[in-house]
């Protein structure tokens, strides 16, 4: 029993953590929390199922097409919902504009795909029971994402430029970094990461249009707890959230596990508004 709680907790936790990283990737270059993060995750499952199951594309090209599709949507988000409102960040209009894009994506999916959860294919047929691929695939994807990003940020020129923009936008621009192009690139990257999360987790969550809203919330929890822009905090909190949710699921049943997550989330945030790993707030006056 414990083993299955751990296995499924790690699996959903990894998906939440990756959606958290998706939020962070967009936030780092634009200071915008985008509601499209969860929709990328939803589309990862839906597009994967569409390409592989419905259209019969082989697994690897199917994955590439899914990631590319969401990366494109990330770029569209930047153009349509982020750039027009960047000038007035303090008015929080981005909450509304990105929400609008997220809803467009979600309702379009509901109309053109299905309003019922659709199956997602088993990809590798490796492992059984606790070691079923639906459990280890998200963990593997999450580990690959984290390591890939660490390498990207620390070792590549473009990655370092990302970090520079995230640290100090003005200084980075003064150095001549192409801030706008880097921002577009970060939205594409976020789209791909979100899609990978949804693709890897789709055997658990299925290809379902309503997963977008769900992932928006459960993917935001690790961001809030881990501190905005803090990927390591997001991974730790995401995994923690997954394990807590599965344990609560087992102990008190499905309904009250979501209540437990929600209540715990609010209590932690009220006690530590900057998250468990975050930095204190800036000056106001």
């Amino acid at each position, binding site marked *: 029993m414990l083993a299955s709680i751990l296995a499924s907790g790690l699996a959903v936790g990894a998906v939440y953590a990756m959606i958290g990283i998706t939020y962070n990737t967009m936030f780092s270059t634009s200071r915008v929390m985008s509601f499209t993060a969860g929709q990328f995750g939803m589309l990862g499952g839906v597009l994967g199922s569409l390409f592989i199951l419905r259209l019969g594309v082989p697994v690897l090209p199917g994955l590439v097409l899914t990631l590319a599709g969401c990366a494109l949507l990330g770029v569209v988000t930047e153009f*349509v*919902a982020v750039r027009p409102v960047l000038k007035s960040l303090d008015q929080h209009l981005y909450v*509304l504009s990105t*929400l609008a894009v997220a*809803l467009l994506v979600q309702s379009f999916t509901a109309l053109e795909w299905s309003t019922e959860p659709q199956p997602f294919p088993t990809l590798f047929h490796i492992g059984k029971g606790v070691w079923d691929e639906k459990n280890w695939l998200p963990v593997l994807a999450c580990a690959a994402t984290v390591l890939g990003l660490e390498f990207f940020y620390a070792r590549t020129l473009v990655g370092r430029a990302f970090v520079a923009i995230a640290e100090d936008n003005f200084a980075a621009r003064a150095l001549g970094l192409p801030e706008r192009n880097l921002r577009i690139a970060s939205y594409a990257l976020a789209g791909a990461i979100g899609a990978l999360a949804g693709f890897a987790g789709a055997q658990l969550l299925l290809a379902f249009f309503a997963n977008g809203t769900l992932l928006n*919330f459960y993917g935001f929890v690790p961001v809030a707890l881990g501190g905005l822009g803090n990927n390591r905090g997001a991974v730790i909190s995401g995994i923690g959230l997954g394990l807590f949710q599965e344990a609560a699921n087992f102990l008190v049943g499905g309904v009250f596990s*979501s209540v437990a997550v*929600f209540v715990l989330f609010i209590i932690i945030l009220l006690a530590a*508004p900057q998250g468990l790993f975050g930095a204190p707030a800036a000056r106001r006056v």
Partner: protein
Amino acid sequence: MSATERTEAMPVTSLARAPSVLSRFWPFLALLVAALALPVTGNHYWALIATRAAIYWVLVAGLNLIVGFAGQLAIGYVALLAVGAYTSSVLAAGNVLPPVPAFAALGAAGVVGAVVGVVVGLPALRLRTFYFAMTTLGFATIVTQIALAWQGVTGGGIGIAGPQFPAPLNTPWGFYYFCLAAAALCTWITGNIAASRFGRALVAVRDAEVAAEASGISKPRLLVAVFILGGALAAIGGGLFASLQSYITPDAFTFDLSVLFFVAVLIGGRGSILGPLLGTIVLTVLPEIAAPLAAWSTFLYAALLLVIVVAMPGGIAALLDVRNRRPLPAKRAILPETNALEALIGSPEVPGGLSLRGIVLSFGGIRAIDGLDLDVRPGEVHGLIGPNGSGKTTTLNVISGFYAPEEGRLTLGQEALPAGAPVLRARRGIARTYQTPRLIGAASVLQNVMVGATADGRASFLEALLALPRHRRDEATMAKRARQALAAVGLGALADVRADRLQHSELRFLEIARALMVRPAFLLLDEPAAGLSTGEIKRLGGLIRAISQHGTGVLLVEHHADLIFDICDRITVLNLGRILAVGTPAEIRMHREVVSAYLGA
């Protein structure tokens, strides 16, 4: 009013007159008459649609105060509709307790909704905007999950019957009139709040949070009151909704409904009652008259939301606001009438001097203020000058409570001023202005000034809700005093103009008018002359002197040396967070270090 001002200001007064009572209410009356006449059609299908619109408005009216006025992005309000629907249905059906009458169930739903509204709203009191949006979204997802899984009470996926009201409310038109009455009542009470000091305070918290705090507005208390009202109305709407549906399942409360509510407020326009009302009607009716649209309605609402945010942030209300599109006269002068100060502030109660002793405050490793002693006496104009970064504005922020110093004492008269409590300053008679004016662009000039008197209001939220006599007296006094304040600073003719249409120099005088509403014992001015013309600076100087003659101590941070030496009784010169010199203007002018460090030879 002087003769010159009258001629100059004439076109303004005639153009920007406050709307008459009739012109403000006729759209509501017209809607009500049309709604009352609807049964003439005899069409039960229309009764259904109109009832639904009325029920949605019961919820949106409350949500409008939260989203449109307070600017809190509550995107998952369908959750409260669900809470109200299930509470009233479960109580009426007697699943848990013995069955109660439908009206009692509806009332209980309102109470539960009020409690839940506050609980869900709690994060908004401490956290950033996006967090609140997320918690309401999270709440919306878990409420339907609970409804689905808690089968013993909610009936799970099978559902539960809604409460049935007794005759004559059990016919389509009877129930329609009942819901219409509820909707009209909601319009009235939320309209009362919108026009009260609470409504202005909500908008102030949204657009000028710092200035709101310094005016004595406590954001947590205000938001809790609005969350209670919004939650109760939403849940009562939920009870009516359950009765209209006659049978509810968790599927009835999809996120799409939340989107409808939210978009209705935003296309209506923030800070308006009529706009969101029209928005609700349009969004409810539109998918019905264009049947092919029904499936695509959420997609269309989302597209509409995007268009509004990016292209038309003012919504319907901005389209209807014809008055504020008429041009203002280009050549207008600010002519303070200092004799209006007598009626406005008289001789304010001054409990003694304002004194700072040994104040230390550092940011990171830098000591912004390093052991500052400062005394501002009642009735004096005290200049605070020094190079950039010498700690002038930081000193004002310590006095007005935005920063808590690490060491040192603040006293007003004999009593200590609590450090780091900006909300308490207005009640102690400390008012201020800001380097960059912090005003509510979307509100009228008069309303901006009235925000300054928020702490003066005696009537409670409940009295304002029902427009009881004490509230009406409050409003009349505040409006009268605000007009006096505007006359005093020379903006009387612009009272009913939207503040974001004013010139920069007018905004500086407007901030002073708002500060005067406090009847300040001490007035802190942060570079009031920045961006003013020479003539305006002269009149500003006269105004400041006149204020101080009423007994108010003025602490003036300024870079215009002429103004400082002209009007100050004493001057303190700061450098790197320490005092370089204190003395009369004549002494400071001769001070060797000051001359070499700051004034220049």
